[in-house]
């Protein structure tokens, strides 16, 4: 079953919407138009944030004179990525590497500084407001923290029902049934519908968050660390739920996570991010088997697993931390921490190159060999 078979109309109700593209032009829906395999494509996406937002913050007293300081956080730097239909792409990296910013830019919570986002054939990065709305429905997000991502003043019914009304999934008459249906799908009892978020446990709240996302009948669901705030035994339940729903509704996942054992289990492909750059992408088997990029190697050696009962001090001894994204290092972003650094790393920034079919890595070492 896919969502699209069920939807007879695509126009949101009660929002006017004469500028809204029709179903046919909304990419990924019409197989005749969607020639490429990818559901979502990101090209050269860049997102920078200004540190000093206005002139008053910019003026600083430095070295005995007034200076104008304009710093920029380079959160996402020229990221290109394609997500194929039905796959689970995991975006991994340490906090501050830009993975959440990338996810939020894709969903439209941030406007990209440069670059494009394609949903099927349509460029959606520059769209705002009503023009964006039909795409907004196709791409939904599950947030990390189920305690802050649900409005404490709204009942479950309001939380789950509001986006469904907004996107015209159902009308008011059918709303209750639609909500109860989606709650049942995520394993919540119908009697919970009139309760408030504080009456639920973390795992149940995350189920509400999943119901809110699924209520819009999306094609792509972005999970921004959806299980990292949950207990271990509950994590397995939510992961199972997400995998079940993926199969049932033919969902495509972009799974943002720093938990590599979860990534190993759930994803089909992995993209590793460092300082706003994608440094390596490969299928899950390949990357866990033989990580290519030195950063991926460091990252994977630091995962605690049950196989080895000793503490991997080598990973802990890797000096240094992620540099500030305000002043990016010259050359390779990882070179100040890299154990295999050699001269070109400090000068030229390596680009993502195919090192095996379907496998990309951005490392000068691959050219040397």
């Amino acid at each position, binding site marked *: 079953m896919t969502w699209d078979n069920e939807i007879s109309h695509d126009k949101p109700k009660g929002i006017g919407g004469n500028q809204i593209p029709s179903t046919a032009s909304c990419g990924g829906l019409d197989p005749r138009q969607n020639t490429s395999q990818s559901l979502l494509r990101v090209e050269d996406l860049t997102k920078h944030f200004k540190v000093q937002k206005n002139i008053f913050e910019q003026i600083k007293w430095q070295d005995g004179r007034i200076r104008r300081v304009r710093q920029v956080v380079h959160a996402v730097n020229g990221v290109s990525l394609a997500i194929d239909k039905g796959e689970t792409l995991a975006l991994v*990296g*340490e906090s501050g590497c830009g993975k959440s910013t990338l996810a939020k830019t894709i969903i439209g919570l941030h406007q990209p500084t440069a670059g494009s986002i394609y949903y099927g054939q349509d460029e959606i990065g520059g769209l705002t407001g009503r023009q964006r709305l039909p795409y907004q429905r196709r791409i939904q997000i599950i947030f990390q923290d189920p305690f802050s991502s649900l409005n404490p003043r709204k009942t479950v019914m309001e939380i789950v029902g509001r986006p469904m009304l907004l996107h015209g999934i159902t009308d008011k008459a059918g709303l209750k049934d639609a909500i109860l249906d989606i709650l049942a799908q995520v394993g919540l009892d119908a009697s919970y519908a009139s309760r408030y978020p504080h009456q639920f446990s973390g795992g149940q709240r995350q189920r509400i968050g999943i119901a809110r996302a699924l209520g819009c009948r999306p094609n792509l669901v972005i999970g921004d660390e959806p299980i990292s705030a949950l207990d*271990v035994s509950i994590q397995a339940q939510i992961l199972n739920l997400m995998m079940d729903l993926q199969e049932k509704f033919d969902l495509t996942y972009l799974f943002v996570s720093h938990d*590599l054992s979860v990534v190993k289990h759930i994803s089909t492909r992995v993209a590793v991010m460092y300082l706003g750059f994608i440094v390596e992408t490969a299928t899950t088997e390949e990357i866990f088997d033989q990580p290519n990029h030195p950063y991926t190697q460091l990252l994977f050696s*630091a995962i605690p697993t049950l196989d*080895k009962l000793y503490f991997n001090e080598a990973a802990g001894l*890797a000096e240094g931390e992620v540099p500030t994204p305000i002043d990016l290092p010259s050359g390779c972003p990882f070179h100040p921490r890299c154990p295999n650094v050699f001269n070109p790393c400090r000068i030229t920034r390596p680009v993502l190159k195919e090192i095996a079919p379907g496998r990309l890595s951005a490392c000068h070492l691959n050219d040397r060999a």
Partner: protein
Amino acid sequence: MNKNATKVLEIEGLKTYFFTRKGVVKAVDDVSFNLEQGQILGLVGESGAGKSITGFSILGLIDPPGRIVNGRIIFQGENLAAKSEADLVKIRGDQISMVFQDPQTSLDPVFTIGFQIKEALKAHQDISEAQALQRAEGLLRTVGIPSPKQRLREYPHQFSGGMRQRVGIAIAMALDPALIIADEPSTALDVTIQAQVLTLMRRLVHQKNSAMILITHDIALVGQFCDCICVMYAGRLVERGSKEQIIKTPAHPYTQGLIASIPGTQERRRRLRQIPGMMPSLVDLPEGCPFLPRCPKAVEDCSERPVLVDIGRGHQAACFRSQAS
């Protein structure tokens, strides 16, 4: 483990109850364990299992309606449970320190990071402002915060969650305590930083011959990092042993379920083995085994309360099934 090593901490029959309007919450119910010098003990369990309350009880940080109703906490030969608040203040931060779970709330938002580290130093040591500042800068550098000199003048909101946690670790390590209670210290950190920070903490424990209790839900982490493991469920200690015993041959069905539900060890893209249901409310727990409603191996005996029984070489489990076999 070295048999001649001195015991840093001995907990016997600790019971910490909360007397709420809804009933008595037995947050920690009859917990006993020992800790030796240079040892790292992992206290594992889900949230609400009572691991944090055990940690707070050691430091005497239980506020009404909670109370330590029974048990002894022997730290360096003295019973902390019987000590006055004034005595505990001298011990806290100096001899026993704590790294808190939530770096958002454990730092005061209206004071600079530098002030808060200096405050910890000056509370227990007679040092000058300049010395304190220098120590604070050194501590920030030790926990891996870049440009520490500038960061000392910044406020908690200017730090990321991971960075804030490092500040918390810096404060806890400031006075080289004999016992560090780390309550989910690395949960907010990334794996490479977690490895760095834990390596750092582990070295400190070994160098200073102090001891550490690592409270966490991450059983894989505990398996690598700790010497011995205590598994808690619904306020009770359900299993105790060396890390090899717990990870390789878990005896309690809860521990077995916990280990089995960890992704990464099972076949990929398949449903994970999950423990059904969730932990029961700690109010009015049934008298029997607290894991009974979720247990796949339950038998009739389980309606009686199981106690920790030795099942071999210091490995203890509170389960009738594991004791029978």
